């Protein structure tokens, strides 16, 4: 137990992951929030902090209005794309540790299948954002229009420099799928997938194939945080924030302009800060929930965090090490690749359930005491959180 841990996760709630939903994004958020508060044994009147998620487009006022929150003291929205939720965990911890807020509600997810389908995105489908201004002016007009193409550049360069292969990416996809096959919540629960199927899946942006891409899905996840002191009086095992950090690469506005696009520099920085704060090392981690918008991001994240050296990610994933039963199981719910894409928030609910021993026995990591959650967002920005259980 780190002497620094002062904030804890006390509740998590999720809607089902679906492809098609009658609910609005806000309704999904509210349902997840109500479930998370019930899980914590708290109610809306206890909430005095809300962290809406950038990618969902909801605002604090939505939660005040619909949950009937009487006295909101703190609200903030982080804008680092897919890393927003993990960074929001850090900001919520700061608000709690600083005495600004007592109980903070964080919610993410969207109608990623029914409304905001990334694969159907063309101009205007995603609201313009200042961080995109360089890409909007100098890359999208040159056909480099969507994330899978930006990340494909990085994956290709990684293959060129280190001999990484499409099969290496495939082993990550297969590991996530195997885990999803043990998770009834997962969209891919009853859909096994082999490396051969991965290799036969169509190229989307070479070298990335369809099965290298995370799922377009509808759903929301909520997390409730409070002080560790108060968490000890609540119903579930307190999940402590042992360490957290965020990081920003340079330039933070384009992957193609990174001096070394094969590194997720923002996550290197974030993970170093999280481990320093927790006074832990990668060897201490029992399982990791790695943000997996694309398989290559997982491979590069394993390197960035320090589980292996830069360039060795391909070899690292080759022998089943990242699967349940291996030395470092990752994405034990199936992750964004095979459970559902909930803007990274579902990686936190899975970490919490692993630490509480609440998952199906077939995918419970034995003696799980320390879990790392990472995120990559926008253009290699990063965030990392290390969670533990106070038993």
């Amino acid at each position, binding site marked *: 137990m780190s002497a620094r841990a002062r904030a804890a996760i006390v509740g998590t709630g999720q809607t089902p992951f679906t492809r098609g939903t009658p609910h609005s994004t806000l309704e999904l958020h509210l349902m997840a929030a109500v479930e998370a508060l019930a899980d914590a044994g708290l109610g809306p009147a206890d909430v005095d902090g809300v962290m809406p998620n950038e990618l969902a487009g909801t605002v604090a006022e939505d939660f005040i209005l619909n949950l009937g929150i009487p006295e909101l003291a703190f609200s903030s929205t982080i804008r680092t794309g897919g890393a927003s939720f993990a960074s929001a965990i850090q900001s919520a911890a700061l608000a709690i540790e600083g005495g600004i807020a007592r109980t903070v509600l964080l919610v993410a997810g969207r109608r990623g299948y029914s409304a905001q389908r990334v*694969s159907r*995105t*063309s*101009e205007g489908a995603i609201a313009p954002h200042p961080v995109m201004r*360089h890409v*909007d*002016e*100098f*890359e*999208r*007009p*040159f*056909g*480099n*229009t*969507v994330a899978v*193409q930006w990340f*494909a*550049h*990085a994956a*290709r*360069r990684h293959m*060129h420099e280190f001999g990484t292969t499409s099969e290496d990416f495939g082993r990550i996809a297969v590991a996530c799928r195997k885990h999803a096959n043990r998770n009834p919540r997962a969209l891919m629960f009853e859909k096994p997938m082999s490396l051969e199927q991965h290799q036969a899946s*169509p*190229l*989307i*942006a*070479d*070298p*990335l194939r369809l099965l290298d891409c995370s799922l377009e899905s509808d759903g929301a996840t909520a997390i409730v945080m409070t002080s560790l002191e108060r968490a000890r009086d609540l119903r579930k095992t307190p999940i402590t924030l042992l360490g957290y950090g965020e990081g920003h690469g340079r330039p933070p*506005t*384009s992957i*193609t*302009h990174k001096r070394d*696009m094969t590194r997720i520099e923002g996550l290197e920085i974030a993970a170093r800060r999280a481990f320093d704060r927790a006074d832990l090392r990668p060897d201490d981690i029992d399982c990791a929930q790695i943000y997996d918008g694309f398989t290559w991001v997982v491979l590069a994240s394993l390197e960035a965090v320090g589980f292996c050296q830069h360039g060795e990610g391909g070899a690292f994933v080759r022998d089943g090490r990242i699967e349940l039963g291996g030395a470092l199981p990752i994405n034990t719910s199936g992750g964004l690749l095979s459970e559902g894409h909930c803007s990274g928030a579902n990686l936190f609910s899975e970490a919490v359930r692993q630490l509480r021993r609440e998952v199906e026995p077939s995918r419970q990591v034995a003696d799980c005491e320390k879990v790392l959650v990472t995120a990559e967002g926008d253009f290699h920005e990063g965030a990392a959180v290390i969670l533990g259980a106070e038993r």
Partner: protein
Amino acid sequence: MSAPTRETAEVARPAPQSTELSDGFWEGVRAGRLVIQRCTACGLLRHYPQPMCPACRALGFDWAPVSGRGSIYSYTVAHRAFHPAWQAHVPYAIATIELDEGIRMVCDLPGTPPEQVVIGARVEVHFAELPGQGAMPRFRIATGAGETR
């Protein structure tokens, strides 16, 4: 550098939205010249355009001509179009190009034979009028040049 030539394409491509920071770049393109934002205090070239020099914090800039020659740093081949303007062109390559001056630029290479799109391939700029966009810088595989790495 040569005068603009016309590429055939059916659907309008998204037009770049020029700003006061980048007007000089696009004015250069319309004149058939590739120019890059340069700090007038310390001479640092910077692309994409930005208001302040991150090396010396000066605000002043002008536009420096560059060679238009470079090599492919990385690339992808898009097998699926995510914008209607590229629907008729899949599969098409998109390259990240590193100019000899150390500046990176991105350009699609529709019609370029796939075996020529490799990391290290030498490329050179030209200019073309494109539907919906007007004059644009374009890159093509340099003739008679070998790979650099």
